[in-house]
Structure formats: C-alpha cells, structure tokens
C-alpha cells in the first residue's frame, strides 16, 4: 500500500480483542442509533421510497404502516426540521438574478 501516514494511524487496528469488541460495539451503536433517529426525523424519505415500489398487497401494507408512522412523527413535530431546511432550500433554488441585483435584502427574497 502506498504510504499515507495520516491514514496509516487512523487504520491502525485495535491492539487486542477487548478493544476491538469495544470499537465494534461503538460502531454498531452509532449505526443503530443513526438509523433510529433517521426513521424518526426522516420518516418522509421512507414513505417516498415505499410509494415508488410497484404495489402489491405486502408493499401496500408496509406503505400504509409507514404512512401512519410518518403522521405520528409529524404530529410530534419531528419532521419539521427537514421540512424547514427543504423549504428554505427550495426558495434559494427559485432565486433569479433580478431578485438579487438591486440591493434587496436576503430576507425579502427568502420570505417569498
């Protein structure tokens, strides 16, 4: 392997099995917690995925269940961050040169 001191240090394997096990548990927890948090805050993404699948009874059942899940998360206010970011970003995409040419403030264009 080409020498790359920076990454050599990062990839240095755990010195013993106990530390390896700790690292593995740490990584596993990161992934599981991440997946759970994503399921809560990004419920919309999963519903969209289910909607794009060819409908058969099983997929439709899963989709409806996920839809309920999304509604609950929505009621809990967890989907708000994603929506807020998404809306701001959409507004940014719609921006035209004419909107920013005269010295109009950013807020004005954003609020549209």
């Amino acid at each position: 392997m080409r020498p790359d001191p920076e990454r050599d240090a990062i990839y240095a394997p755990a010195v013993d099995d106990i530390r390896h096990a700790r690292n593995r548990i740490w990584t596993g927890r990161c992934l599981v917690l991440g997946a759970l948090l994503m399921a809560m805050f990004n419920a919309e993404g999963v519903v969209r995925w289910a909607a794009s699948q060819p409908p058969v009874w099983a997929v439709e059942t899963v989709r409806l269940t996920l839809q309920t899940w999304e509604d609950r998360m929505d009621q809990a206010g967890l989907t708000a961050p994603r929506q807020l970011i998404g809306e701001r970003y959409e507004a940014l995409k719609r921006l035209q040169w004419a909107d920013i040419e005269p010295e109009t403030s950013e807020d004005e264009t954003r609020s549209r």
Partner: protein
Amino acid sequence: MLFPTFVFAVFFLIVFTVAWGLERENGRRKAFLLAASYVFYGWWDWRFCALLFASSVLNWMIGRAIAVTPGNAGRTAWMVIGVIANLIILGLFKYYGFFLENVSGLLSDLGLERDYLFLQIILPVGISFYTFQGISYIVDMKRGRAPAEAGLVDVMLYISFFPQLVAGPIVRAADFLPQLRATPRLSRQAAALGLLLIVWGLFKKTVIAAEIAEGLVDPVFFDPSAYGSVDLLFATYGYAVQIYCDFSAYSDIAIGCAALLGYRFQRNFDQPYRACSFQEFWRRWHISLSTWLRDYLYIPLGGSKGGTFSTYRNLFVTMLLGGLWHGAAWTFIAWGALHGAALAIERALGLARSRRSLISLILVFHVVCLGWILFRSPDFAGAAAYLASFVRFDQPLEALTPFLAGLTVLGLALHALPSRGIEAAARALARLPSVATAAILTGLFLIVEALRPEGVAPFIYFQF
C-alpha cells in the same frame, strides 16, 4: 443496487451485522461477504453474476498456474495468457459495439454486412473495474507481490467485494488479499472515518452533483448552440465540479463501507483541481487508476528509462489507452490524447518541476476543463458546437441561476478545505461517546436528505 438508496442502506445494515457476527469464523465471514457482493451485483441483472463468476475463477486459475509453475518463462507465459484473456473479455463486452459502429459503413460498402455480426452486446456494470483488478492480481502474482496461498474465495472476494465492485477504487491484490488472512480488528478512528466519508459522499453526490447536472450541465450540453458564453463557461465549470463530486463520492462511500467492515482501501481523490501541473493532477485525480496505469502499462512499456522519445511515446500511449478505458468513443480517446499531450509538453518544457503559482493552477484547471468538454460531449460535432458557441457574449443568461452559480463555486471551494480535514474530524468524532457521534452524523445526514432532489441519477462512472 445504488449507494444513495434506501435499499442499499438496509442491505448494508444487514451485511454489517452479520459480518461482525461471524468475526470468529473468518472463512464463513468471507463467504458471507462474497455472497452479499453477488446479491449487490445481481440486483442490476442476475445474469451479470455469471460473467463476474467466470472472470474471478479464470483469474484464480491463472494465479494458481503462476504459483505452481517453476520457471520464470513459464510464469511469464501464464501471465500473458491471463492478461490477454482479461482484455478479450473487456474488449468483447465493452468495445465490440464501438468497433461495429466504426466498420459497419465499410462492411456495407464491401457487401460484407452479415446479420450475425450485428449483436447487441450488453455492457455489464463495472466490468472495466473488475477486469483491471483481475489483471492486477495476475501481474502481482507473477511479480511475487500477491500472497501465493490465496484461495478461491479470497480471490473471488477481492474481485467482487461490493463496495468497490462497480465504480472503484481499483484495489490492488497486493493491498487487499493480505487483509483477508484473518478477521480484521476494528479501529474506532477508521470506523468514524468510514461513517464520515459515507455522509460526505452522499452530500457531494446527491446535493452538489445531482443538482448541477440537472439544472445546468445536462441542458447546456444537450444543445450548446442555444446558450451564451457565460452559461457555457459555468456549465463547463459545473461539469468539472459534477464529475469530481460524483466520482469522488462513489470512492468515498466505497472506502467508508469497507472501513466499517474492517478493510482498508486507498484514498482515490485528493482535491484534484488544486493541481498546479498535469503530473500533479494525475496524482490527485482517480489515484487508483493513474497508479494502475503507471504500474501495469507505463512501466511495462519501458517507462522513462528508454530515452526521451520512448518516454514521451509511453506517456502518450498510456494516456490514450487510459482515455479509451473510460468509454468506447472517439471523444474519450481524444480526451486521453489531450492529457497525454499536456503531460508530454509539460515534461518537455520542465514546467512540472518549476515553481508553482496561482497562474499555473488556473491554466491547468482550464485545460482540464477543455478536456471535460470533450469528455461530456456526445461526439466531436457536439464538442465543436460547444466551443464555437463560446463567442456569443451578448446572449442573456438562461440556465445559470444564482443558486447553480453558488453551487458550482461551492464545489470548487471544497478544494480550499484543509486537505486532511476529514481525517481530523474522524479523530475528533472517535473520541465521543456513540450517542453523540450518532447525533452529529444523523444531523448531517438529515441535512443531506432534506437538500437532495428526489430520485438521484446513477453515478457517472458506472458506464465505464
């Protein structure tokens, strides 16, 4: 299976869980990873798996033959047979259509047109990558760099390991096979780096590359004659950003997935547009390909040892074939020729070793961009139309919006980040408890998810 999809996320979580569950049984673990790789590949088309299997077994058999043959001449003969076999597979699947396209006019003129010649040969995803890995295995065996005792499962896993299977990085047998001897011990920093690279790759691919492609690059390259010079200029910069973000993202996600499973791949990109010379560009762009070409093509051709003329010839031939590797079209060959010529001129003038400045950076970047126009255009006529349209200075902006301009600038600005920033972030992240790390990564991931447009197109490098 595509990386930035829900299906892949579920697939990877399963693979991660089972692979570490089998950590006491390295043989079963490898067999499982191999099976998972075939599932990953078969997701496109299960028939492709047969070719992958045949190619892997063939390479393993040649490798065995090299290992058991005593004399150097015999080993060389096996190596040559192996390389030719790999090139035949690649040539048949990748270049047959191109060949036919170029000779069909001639055939019909000569009255040699035959129905059986007109075959539509399907290009299996990733074939360019895995045949190159097969060649790497055979040549490394001959050179004595790859472990001779590697079994069939090891070689098959090396060729078909799913993170790098379809779009690189091109892993070396000498680098990867030793990692399969025992179950790897996980490093927490490497795992943190893997997680970060995955999120970072998703950002580059689904936010920057996808958006620029759809809003700017695709429409402008579709009909350049409808746009003015500023649109064209930004679409060129945009494509430079898009192809970098697209391809480096794939490599990053691949490196990240492998790291989470305990394996190490080389870094494949190093802020390429920071290069102040072409030589440096190729040290920063698609490093696994450029070093592959250097070790298995340029040096066997004679490298820089045979005098000035042969050095330039070798350089040029290497880049020309490197261009052809990217796709079966004359534009790719021309792209390779452009880079070959640029490298040769730079070498002749001694510019690569002279002092670097902002001017050389800008010059190199713009010649690279010129290359990208060739690379992206469907044919020479398209590239010519693109360049000819640059003179329309008075045409108002049509494709470029403030948002797309900002995104293009952002893509270029990524090159001003500290070159080892992600490693530093990974070290910091590895010190935190898992809850905090998960929270940070989810926050980043959520931002990417909120920004990404729906339905992301496949990675550019799949077609190569």
